[in-house]
């Protein structure tokens, strides 16, 4: 559904993504993990059209979106929920959610979707007239999810949705992601909470230094000792890790420069 091939991108000070090859299958929950600076957030920026790849292929449903604007990508069916606080804090909850459907001209469709997201996220109806900034962090995340679903997206890209939330709220977020997926949406997820992210995922991806280093099912990646090495400050040696989950149990991992 979403294909990255030999993708390079950066902000002018050199490339952050250095040849990303990744295929996101329709109906999957793909979770990307990796240490800070691995290029996870940059990957999300490329998917949302805020950053264009320098070279490489980026295709969504067979169409190149490498040069597409955020507006075109939104219309194509990819909605992104970005890192950290994302609402218009001075506007009401309802206005925030309505803005999610800004590109939909038919007001009856907007009204119908609004009903649907209110059913899914009761907070939207309960606090409709309150300023979004007056909600707690977890509640704001719920409103963001509601806003994202107003476009009825095919693919939902989430950048660290649990960031700054206590475990109970984070669990509700993960449940909502699972529900979205059950309703037929493909999910691309970047997560710092590796265990929670990967247990949710049908497909796990480990990024390091701007490249994909490990791939497999969520459980496989989670069980891979090399993953642990990576998080304790090691690197995956070339030729050993780039393969998929078959690397499980492949000898002693590089614990060398661990903490």
């Amino acid at each position, binding site marked *: 559904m979403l294909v990255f091939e030999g993708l390079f991108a950066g902000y002018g000070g050199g490339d952050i993504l250095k040849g990303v090859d990744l295929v996101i299958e329709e109906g999957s929950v793909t979770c990307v993990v990796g240490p800070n600076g691995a290029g996870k957030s940059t990957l999300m920026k490329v998917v949302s059209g805020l950053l264009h790849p320098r070279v490489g292929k980026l295709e969504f449903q067979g169409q190149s979106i490498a040069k597409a604007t955020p507006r075109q990508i939104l219309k194509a069916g990819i909605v992104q929920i970005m890192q950290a606080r994302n609402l218009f804090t001075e506007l009401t909850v309802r206005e925030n959610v309505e*803005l*999610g459907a800004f590109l939909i001209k038919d007001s009856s469709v907007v009204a119908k979707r609004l009903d649907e997201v209110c059913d899914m996220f009761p*907070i939207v109806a309960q606090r409709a007239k309150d300023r979004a900034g007056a909600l707690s962090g977890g509640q704001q995340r719920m409103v963001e999810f509601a806003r994202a679903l107003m476009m009825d997206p095919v693919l939902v890209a989430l950048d660290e949705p649990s960031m700054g939330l206590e475990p109970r709220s984070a669990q509700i977020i993960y449940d909502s992601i699972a529900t979205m997926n059950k309703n037929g949406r493909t999910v691309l997820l970047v997560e710092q909470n590796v265990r929670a992210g990967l247990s949710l995922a049908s497909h796990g991806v480990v990024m390091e230094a701007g490249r994909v280093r490990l791939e497999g099912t969520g459980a496989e990646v989670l069980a891979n000792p090399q993953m642990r090495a990576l998080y304790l400050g090691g690197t995956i040696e070339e030729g050993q890790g780039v393969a998929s989950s078959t690397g499980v149990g492949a000898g002693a991992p590089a614990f060398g420069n661990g903490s």
Partner: protein
Amino acid sequence: MTTLHAGTAPAELLRPVEAERAFRDPFEPSKRSRATAWVALFALLAAFPIVFSNPAVTSIGVFTMMFLVAAIGWNIFSGYSGYVSIGHAVYYGFGQYAVALLIEHWHVTPGASELAIIPLGGIVAAAVAVPVGLILLRVRKHTFIVLTIAAMFIFQLLAFNFAGFTGGSAGTNVVSPPWTGTVFNLPFYYIGLGAAILALLVSWGIRRSKYGLGLLAIRDDEDRAKGLGIRVTRAKLIAYVASAFFVGIAGGLYATFVGAVYPQFAFDPTYDLAIAVMVFVGGLGTLPGPVLGALVLAPIQQYFYIQFGASTLYLIIYGILFIVILLTLPAGVVPSISDRYRSWMASRQRRREEATPTVGGAMPVTVPAGPVGIDDGGAR
């Protein structure tokens, strides 16, 4: 012996209260009472020059109408988009010059047909606002303010220097209509009032529309607005042109009423200060804000102007007022007061609830709501 006390009230008891609170703001005036207030206000304004027919008073009334139109227009752009323009005098000036020069070149007979030219002041101003806006709106908020001031001085210098066309510092004159006595001011007053009503309807329509919601999103966070597919430059430009139109109308009204147009009064650096103070006092980005600000401050400003002659003392008072308001009530007088009224009403209601023993003096208890709801305590 009662078993219910704070913290142990069953959740079911509290749920309906919470749901009710959420759906309707009990302190918000109903649609009907708001409409009634508007109609009453404009009826009063329409009756004003008939009741107080002294020309000295109605003359202040005409200037007040000019500020009213301009303030409502200015707020459409600066209030809703958050881009504060301190250079809308450009459109005040273009409105003045367009109307004065068209009357001169077309040899319009003094009287009612002169007044028919006033809308052209707005149209010329709007036409100028398209290219100027496209250039100025390339930059973000703070830089934008600086650029608007620069643009205003550029046009003032042009008006001084293209003397063959504008009359330069000698100005351009408009022959006043041949009416006399107490009726002279009335046509100007009612044209101003009519334009103000039109401006208010446009402002109201924009505020209620999806387009207007997009403008408010830009005010809040332009990048996020872009991320939701809003064409930000186009949205800002439309509002900019609409506001220029109404400020141009105010300029046209000025030219025909005063009968003389000078570069330093047409492209007047203090004009935007006056408008901005009115809108900030009333409430930036609200519908009634500019109306209230203009109706209160414009007559005071005119009174000062008459009392202290051509001295600029009133401008000093104005500047001080602006600073005081920005420091104490940055959201404007109307929103701040309505916020305080709300919290006062809410606390009064809470006290009343605490006094009634039916809920067992329950403290607000958080209720987990619905299938996927988070309620970790309301406000951060």
